[in-house]
C-alpha cells in the first residue's frame, strides 16, 4: 500500500527568488488541510518537491480529497517507499510494485529511474534498463514503449527508494495567501461561489459579503450562503463572511426610484457597502460572479454603471463564461447542490418585469439623487448592524 505522496506543483517552480515563499505557503496549506483528518502526516520539502509521508491511522481517499483542495497542487502521485538495498532488491521491489498497482493490465510502459543518491553503484540509465527487464520478465502483458508509454514508472533512489506511476490531477493555481485578499459578493446562486473559487485559486485570500433582506428572504437562504462559504473554505481556509441586512435600503429604493432601475441601483449600493468592508479587511479588490449579458444587470452597459459605484477594481472571473461552463465548475468544487436549493431570491417583488438593460450612468445617478434624504443613514445602519460569520 502507498505510504507517501509526491506533490507536483507547476508555476511555483518559475517564481525565481520568491520561490521559497510560494513553496512555504504550499507546504503550510498542505499541513493545514491534512490537520482536518485522522493520521500522522509529515510534509517534507526537498529539491523542488514536496513529499507527504503518511503514518498512523490514515485513509487514502480522505487524504487525496484533502490534497485536491490545495491550490498550487498540480498533481498528486501516490508513492510506495522501499528500503534501499542492492540492485536485486530493487528489482524485487519493482516487481512488487507492479504486481500491486498494475496487475493484469495490458499496456506499454517505460521506466524512468533517477539516482539522487550517487553512492548507488549503477547509473540512472543502467537502473532503468535493469528494471525494465525485470518487468518484462514478470509481466508478459506489459510491453516497452519509450516514446509514448501508457504507464511511466518513476523510480527515485534517495535515502529510500520511491516508486510511483499514477498522477491524480490537483486544482492547479497558486497557494492561498500568496496574492493578497479580495472581497467576494456572495449570493446563494451558482455563479458567485465559482467566481470566489477562481480568484482564490490564484492565491488570493477571500473575504465575503452577503446581502439578505428579511422577511423577503428567509433564514434558510442565509444559512445556504453560510454553507456555500463553508464549502469554499475547504479550498481557501476560513472565510470572514459579512452578512448585511439590506431590506430597508431595498424598500427605500423601491419607494423613491423608477422601478425598472431598481436592480441596478441596488447593485450599486451593494458595491458601496462591499467596498466599505473590503477596506476594513485590507482587500485589494471586489469579486463578483457576473458574466456578460447573463441578465439585465450584467450587460456591458450595466457593468459600466455598477463599476462606477466602486473605486476598488472589480474582478469578474466568469465574465466570458457560459452558464453551463459555470455549472460544470460549480459541480466540480461541490457548491452546485447547495446553490440550487430553492431558497434563493424567493421574492421576485424587487425584480422589475422590464428592467433597464442599457442604463446610462448620469440617469442612474440622477435617480439616486432622490435617495439623498435618508440613504446615507440607511447605509450606515446596514454597515453597523452587519453580522460577521466565520465560515469554515
Amino acid at each position, binding site marked *: 500500500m502507498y505510504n507517501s505522496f509526491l506533490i507536483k506543483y507547476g508555476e511555483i517552480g518559475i517564481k525565481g527568488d520568491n520561490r521559497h515563499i510560494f513553496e512555504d505557503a504550499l507546504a503550510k496549506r498542505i499541513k493545514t488541510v491534512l490537520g482536518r483528518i485522522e493520521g500522522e502526516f509529515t510534509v517534507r520539502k526537498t529539491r523542488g518537491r514536496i513529499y507527504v509521508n503518511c503514518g498512523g491511522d490514515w485513509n487514502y481517499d480522505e487524504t487525496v480529497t484533502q490534497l485536491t483542495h490545495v491550490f498550487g497542487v498540480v498533481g498528486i502521485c501516490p508513492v510506495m517507499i522501499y528500503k534501499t538495498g542492492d540492485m536485486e532488491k530493487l528489482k524485487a521491489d519493482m516487481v512488487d510494485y507492479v504486481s500491486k498497482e498494475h496487475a493484469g493490465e495490458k499496456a506499454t510502459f517505460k521506466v524512468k529511474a533517477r539516482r539522487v543518491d550517487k553512492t548507488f553503484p549503477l547509473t540512472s540509465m543502467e537502473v532503468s534498463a535493469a528494471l525494465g527487464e525485470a518487468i518484462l520478465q514478470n509481466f508478459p502483458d506489459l510491453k516497452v514503449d519509450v516514446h509514448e508509454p501508457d504507464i511511466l514508472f518513476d523510480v527515485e533512489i534517495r535515502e529510500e527508494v520511491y516508486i510511483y506511476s499514477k498522477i491524480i490531477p490537483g486544482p492547479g493555481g497558486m497557494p492561498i495567501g500568496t496574492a493578497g485578499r479580495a472581497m467576494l459578493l456572495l449570493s446563494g446562486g451558482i455563479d458567485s461561489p465559482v467566481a470566489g473559487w477562481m480568484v482564490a485559486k490564484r492565491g488570493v485570500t477571500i473575504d465575503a459579503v452577503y446581502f439578505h433582506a428579511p*422577511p423577503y428572504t428567509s433564514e434558510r437562504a442565509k444559512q445556504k450562503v453560510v454553507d456555500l462559504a463553508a464549502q469554499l473554505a475547504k479550498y481557501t481556509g476560513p472565510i470572514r463572511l459579512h452578512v448585511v441586512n439590506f431590506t430597508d435600503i431595498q*424598500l427605500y429604493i423601491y419607494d423613491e426610484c423608477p422601478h425598472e432601475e431598481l436592480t441596478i441601483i441596488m447593485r450599486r449600493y451593494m458595491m458601496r457597502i462591499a467596498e466599505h468592508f473590503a477596506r476594513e479587511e485590507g482587500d485589494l479588490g471586489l469579486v463578483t460572479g457576473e458574466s456578460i449579458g447573463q441578465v439585465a444587470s450584467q450587460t456591458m452597459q450595466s457593468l459600466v454603471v455598477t463599476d462606477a459605484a466602486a473605486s476598488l477594481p472589480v474582478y469578474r472571473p466568469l465574465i466570458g463564461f457560459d452558464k453551463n461552463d459555470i455549472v460544470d465548475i460549480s459541480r466540480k468544487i461541490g457548491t452546485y447542490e447547495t446553490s440550487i436549493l430553492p431558497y434563493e431570491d*424567493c*421574492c421576485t*417583488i424587487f425584480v422589475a418585469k422590464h428592467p433597464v438593460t442599457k442604463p446610462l450612468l448620469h440617469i442612474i445617478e440622477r435617480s439616486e439623487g432622490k435617495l439623498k434624504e435618508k440613504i446615507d443613514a440607511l447605509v450606515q445602519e446596514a454597515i453597523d448592524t452587519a453580522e460577521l460569520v466565520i465560515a469554515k
Partner: protein
Amino acid sequence: MKEIYFDNSSTTIVSPEAARIVMKVMTEDYGNPSSMHLKGVAAEKYVREARVKIAKTLRAKENEIYFTSGGSESNNWALIGGALANRRAGNTILTSAFEHPAVSEPLKFLESQGFHIERIPVDREGRLRLDVLREKMTEDVILMSFMYVNNEIGAVNPIEEIGKMKTELCPKALFHVDAIQAYGKYRICPKELKIDLLSVSGHKLHGPKGTGFLYKAESAKLLPLIYGGGQQGGMRSGTENVPGAAGLGVACEEAYTDFEENVAYLRKLRARLVAGLREIPDTVIHGMPGDEGAPHIVNAAFLGAGSEVLLHTLEDRGIYISAGSACSTHKRAGSPTLTAIGASKAEMESSVRFSFSELNTEEEVDEALAVLREVLPVLRRYRRK
C-alpha cells in the same frame, strides 16, 4: 418575545404526560417486547396499554390497532397493502382530488403498477362531488381513500355519507380514511362509519414524532408492507417503538379527554380569527364556512402579499404559521388542495394557514390579527411591477 404557535397542523408540542412516559420507557423500561425475560414483559405492557387506550377512542378492538412510524406509513400501508390484497376483486381505486401527498403519491405508484385511479373533484369550498362519486362506485372498485379533514383548508369530507354509499354500491371495496387532521377533533367510530382502514399520526395531537397507527377492521383484507420478525401479528414487523407507542397512547387518551369542551374552544378561536380576517380588505378565506369546516384550520389568502414574505414577517413577531405555496410560482407548483378547489393564481401566491391547538388563546388570536392589520398594508405596498 412571546411565542404564538399557530402551526399545529404541521406539528404540535408534545404533552408533558406523553413526554414523561417516553422518557421513562427509554431510561427505565427499555426492554424489547419480544424478549422472554421480565424486561421484555414490562415493555410489552406499555405497548398493550397504549393499544387499549387507542382502541377505546375509536370504540374498536385492541387487535384492530397497529403501530406504525406515523401518518405516511399508515397511508402507504393501507393503500398499497389494501390494493395488493384485493387486486383479484377489481382494479379501480377511488379517491378525492385534494388528498395529502402521503395518499396521492402512493396512489400514483399504484397507478404506475396498473391500477385504475379515479380522483373525485371537489367544489370551490372543498365539498366532495358526491354526484360524481356515485357514478364511479362500480363493481370494479376495490379500494376508496378519502381524507376526513383536508390538511390545507380544513374542508371536511362526508365520511358517513361515503360509507353508506359504499355499502349500497360497492360493498366489497375497502374504505380507507386518512384521519390525520381529524382524529382528536371528531369522534370517529370506524365500525359505524363503515371505515375499514384509518390512518392517524401522533405528532399532530401532542404525541411524539415518528409515531402513529393504522386501524384495520378485523374483516379487512390487507397485506403487510414491512416483513421481518413477525411483530404485531406479522402485519407490521420491526421491534415496536415502545416509548413512542406509550407516548402516543397517552396523547390519544388526552385528545379525547374533555373532548367536547376542547372542540368547542377550538371553534371559538377559529370563529374569532375568521371574524377578524373578514374585516381585513382583499382577504379570501378558503374552505367551508362556520361549523361545517374543521375546528382548528383557517386558510386565508391576503391578496397582494406574498405568502412566504408574510410568514417571515409574522415569524419576526413571534407568530408561526405556514405558507401553502411559494411566492415564486415559476419555481414551485401550487398547492394540490388550492389547485383542486380552483383557487386563482393570486390566491395561491398569498395563501397562508393558521392552525390551532387547545393551548392557543383568544388573546393570541387578537394579537395575530393586530399584527396582520399592521403589516399587511406595508407588504401590499411592495409588489412586483
